[in-house]
């Protein structure tokens, strides 16, 4: 497996989250976002974090990225505690986060420029990355001239430009249409295999998480805890046709069962009870008409 190879080659990009707890707000308005979460990403591994909306999966990613400090526990990258954002962790956001005032190439160069890399070297690296993303011919365009899928591809290679140890992705394809999503997933697996980089990928899309990952953590509704950890034994490289295989289907079924319970829980106790009994709403003998 490539994952194991990458691990022995470099031993870099090991994310370890231990006994993590995050509480937002103070005193009586406290919200427990994340409770007692431990997870890890092995060097070169692709790990997804899946769960219902509001379960704290983005919060976890923000902690690993260094934007949020946990209330309890700690996150480490290659043994070093994470305290602030840094270019050793590339982040791809759900919203398009390209700088609209910079050309596509200058966007990709940004991290290198911050690191003080000279212009000609930045240029070469950025062009090679844009070539990889299939967007070299757009290097002098502005982000607002591009489609959503193009912007996210640039977002990914921009995050890779500083050669980070890990890539943190927060529902990066959430804003894209289904067809574009599928293509983007294939592009991402391709890029990931070339870079042999660890990825922590947040999503609420079950098929997406299976297609991309080596391992999937399923989170509970708020407060977010790890509900299950599932290995994806599908071979690499992954291809779009694999989504029709029985192995893939059975993984989807397994995850759907795990997630449905949590999605219902996330909607509040009333919906949870109804959902578990099949949404049978009983209004009275006259039906809905009685309400009006």
């Amino acid at each position, binding site marked *: 497996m490539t994952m194991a190879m990458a691990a022995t080659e470099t031993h870099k990009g090991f994310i370890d989250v231990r006994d993590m707890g995050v509480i937002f707000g103070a005193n009586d308005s406290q919200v427990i976002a994340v409770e007692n979460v431990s997870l890890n990403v092995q060097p070169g591994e692709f790990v997804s974090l899946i769960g219902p909306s509001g379960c704290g999966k983005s919060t976890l990613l923000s902690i690993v990225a*260094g*934007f949020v400090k946990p209330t309890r526990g700690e996150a480490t990258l290659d043994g070093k505690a994470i305290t602030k954002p*840094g270019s050793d962790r590339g982040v791809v956001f759900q919203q398009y986060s*390209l700088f609209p005032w910079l*050309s596509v190439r200058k966007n990709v160069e940004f991290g290198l420029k911050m690191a003080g890399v000279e212009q*000609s070297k930045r240029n*070469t690296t950025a*062009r090679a990355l844009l070539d990889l993303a299939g967007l070299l011919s757009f290097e*002098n365009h502005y982000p*607002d001239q591009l489609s959503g899928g193009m912007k996210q591809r640039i977002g990914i290679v921009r995050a890779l430009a500083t050669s980070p140890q890990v890539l943190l992705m927060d529902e990066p394809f959430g804003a894209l249409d289904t067809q574009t999503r599928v293509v983007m997933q294939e592009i991402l697996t391709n890029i990931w295999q070339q870079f042999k980089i660890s990825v922590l990928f947040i999503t609420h899309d079950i098929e997406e998480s299976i297609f991309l990952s080596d391992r999937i953590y399923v989170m509970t509704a708020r407060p977010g805890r790890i509900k299950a950890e599932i290995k994806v034994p599908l071979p690499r490289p992954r291809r779009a046709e694999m989504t029709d295989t029985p192995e893939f289907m059975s993984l989807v079924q397994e995850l759907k069962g795990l997630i449905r319970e949590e999605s219902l829980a996330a909607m509040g106790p009333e919906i949870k009870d109804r959902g578990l009994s099949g949404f049978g709403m009983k209004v009275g003998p006259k039906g809905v008409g009685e309400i009006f």
Partner: protein
Amino acid sequence: MGSTANAKVVALPLPGGRVDPKPVEAMTSSIPEGPAPEAPVTNALSEAAGVIEPAPEIVPTISLGDIAQVLLKQFTRERIISAVLALISVGTLFMIWYLGTKYRFEFYIRFKNVPTPAEVYQQAMQVGLSNAFLVNIGYSVRRILIGFFIAIAIGVPLGLMIGKYQRARDLFMPVVEILRPIPAIAWVPLAIMLWPNNEAAIVFITFIGAFFPILLNTIHGVRSLDGVLVRAGRCLGANEAQLFWNVILPGSMPHIFTGLAVGMGVAWVSLIAAEMISGQFGVGYFTWEAYSLVNYPAIMLGMITIGVLGLACSGIIRMIGVLLMPWLAFAPGGKR
């Protein structure tokens, strides 16, 4: 102050030295001067050879070709309709003036003493070539530029700080909120007391006029900057200073330019008021003096001059904005 006026008007001292002292000329001449002259050559090279070999080369983001395209785009149907409507609006104003003075319209509004366009034109021909009139214009423009650039130099950095840091906001905003509602004209008496001479007082009042729109729009620009861009900047390794320079400043630029355009307008209003009250020289002084001397055509000439100068100044600011921020043409919602 008066005796050195002639010498001063020839070489107007301009802080920053970025804007041409003759605004109307600057509007047309700044177009080809903006980008690097070698732009089209390198751009063509990159298009021909770029895809084949990713060789390091410097490709300017704004090329002459882009600007030519932008200029060509000006001649669209929409633009022509806009131009015709602009002509109608200015033409109507002129016709009201012309017909009102020609037939000496008098019904509550009295056109009896209003000079005709012909009289004003004669006055312009007579006065326009005179050195005294140019000295007045020179004085006004110089005061505007000094006051305006000081307002930028203080307003933009302060606005960035206040917009970014809660502590800076807590420290500065109370003073800003107290001083902001005071119109620049109300500063005139105090300014005369505060500053050693009239010239400094007038520049100060112009500064006050420009300062608050620039400051508040800069603050607004920082605050409305998408937080994800700041986070993206941090993730890409930008430290605090780099973040200011590479993310917060360019990201706030559209709002800053809105502030500059508004500030320039208010600066003119303040300047003319100050010149009328306490000035020696300047277009406002010229206009008020004409009223005192019962030279009615000169009043109109002064007003028109103020209008044209104000228009030219905002035009230059808009032009610089377009050149500095070509990306805005593609921003969602189209052109600003």
